[in-house]
């Protein structure tokens, strides 16, 4: 079936872990936008959710760092962090090994991916799922792009992954939704935590909504690091979703810098209809 949903959201651990330290008014509007994303995905009739994330040394490390990885398991446990620290209880999210295998097989025709039959979710997936599938009743297909350990996945390759995922999603009988999680500008877990470059974020979201391939892959890592912090490297996940949306244009449902969450909190989606 053709892809039924494509969107992006933030995944910073403070969104759940430091919820009580944020301005309640802004926080609750952000949470409401997450609820809107959940409703849209439910309404799409999605039978599986592909989550393109940028994990943070939970499963993958520099001893054998995959440029891309896709999960191929019937279940995924999380969070790998201390549940008290993240304020998300331990969960087991369903997977679908057979569907993953078919998706991976198709993606591999054009993009070299690693597959993983074990995968423990960190906040990069756990935080979005906490809002989007809070009952953990939708099978997840986790996808990782190396946004952490340089040399990082080049942006044009993130785009190629998104195209391949779209082709794969369209090729299976199931109804597939996809979300990208991460970014945009932020300096997570460093002394600059809380710094957010709103102007840079808005320029990026403008390119994202226009689904402007050339402008989206035009960023270079030194520039991203200087203007958007090492957290900005995670735009790779948003760019992959742009490619998966196949030229559709997008809408930002929510954007606001929330410093205690250490990120410009974002919910956006493409109009696939």
């Amino acid at each position, binding site marked *: 079936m053709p892809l039924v949903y494509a969107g992006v959201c933030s995944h910073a651990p403070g969104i759940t872990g*430091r919820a009580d330290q944020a301005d309640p008014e802004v926080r609750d509007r952000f949470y409401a936008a997450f609820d809107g994303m959940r409703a849209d995905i439910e309404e799409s009739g999605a039978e599986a959710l592909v989550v393109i994330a940028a994990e943070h*040394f939970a499963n993958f490390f520099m001893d054998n760092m995959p440029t891309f990885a896709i999960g191929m398991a019937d279940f995924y446990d999380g969070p790998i*962090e*201390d549940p008290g620290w993240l304020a998300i209880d331990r969960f087991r999210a369903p997977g679908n090994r057979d569907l993953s295998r078919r998706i991976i097989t198709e993606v591999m025709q054009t993009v070299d991916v690693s597959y993983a039959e074990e995968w423990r979710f960190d906040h990069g997936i756990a935080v979005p799922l906490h809002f989007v599938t809070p009952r953990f009743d939708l099978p997840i297909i986790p996808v990782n792009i190396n946004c952490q350990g340089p040399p990082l996945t080049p942006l044009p390759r993130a785009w190629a992954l998104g195209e391949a995922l779209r082709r794969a999603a369209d090729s299976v009988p199931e109804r597939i939704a996809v979300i990208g999680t991460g970014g945009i500008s932020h300096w997570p877990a460093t002394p600059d935590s809380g710094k957010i470059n709103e102007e840079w974020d808005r320029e990026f979201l403008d390119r994202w909504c226009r689904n402007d391939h050339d402008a989206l892959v035009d960023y270079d890592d030194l520039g991203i690091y200087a203007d958007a912090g090492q957290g900005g490297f995670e735009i790779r996940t948003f760019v992959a979703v742009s490619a998966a949306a196949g030229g559709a244009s997008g809408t930002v449902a929510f954007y606001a810098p929330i410093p205690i969450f250490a990120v410009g909190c974002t919910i956006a989606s493409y109009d696939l209809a």
Partner: protein
Amino acid sequence: MSLYYVQKFLYELNRDPDLQAAYMADRRDVLRPYEVTEEEADALIGPDIGLLFHLGVNGQILMHFAALHQIEWADYLALMRDGVARHGPVREGVYAMTGYEGVDARRSRSESDEGA
């Protein structure tokens, strides 16, 4: 200087409750399989969060190590700032890409830019 092995140890520690228990029981002993220098070992044993940040440990790894030691978020940020102030800009790793100098140095530089 063996940032790779310092981070490898922390990566494994973050994932493994048994290793966490062993570390809490004998911090120096659990480091034996890892190719780390004396300075790095002392920072991991202390723990010296500021020195680890200065050495280049990624915050996505370091923040969990701080949480393991019951260090509150605001204190974790302060310890990293303190490390940069004590030891200088981050030596290696992703934050050394453009010479990470920390917020205080950045702020004083931007203030003097504004004054100019």
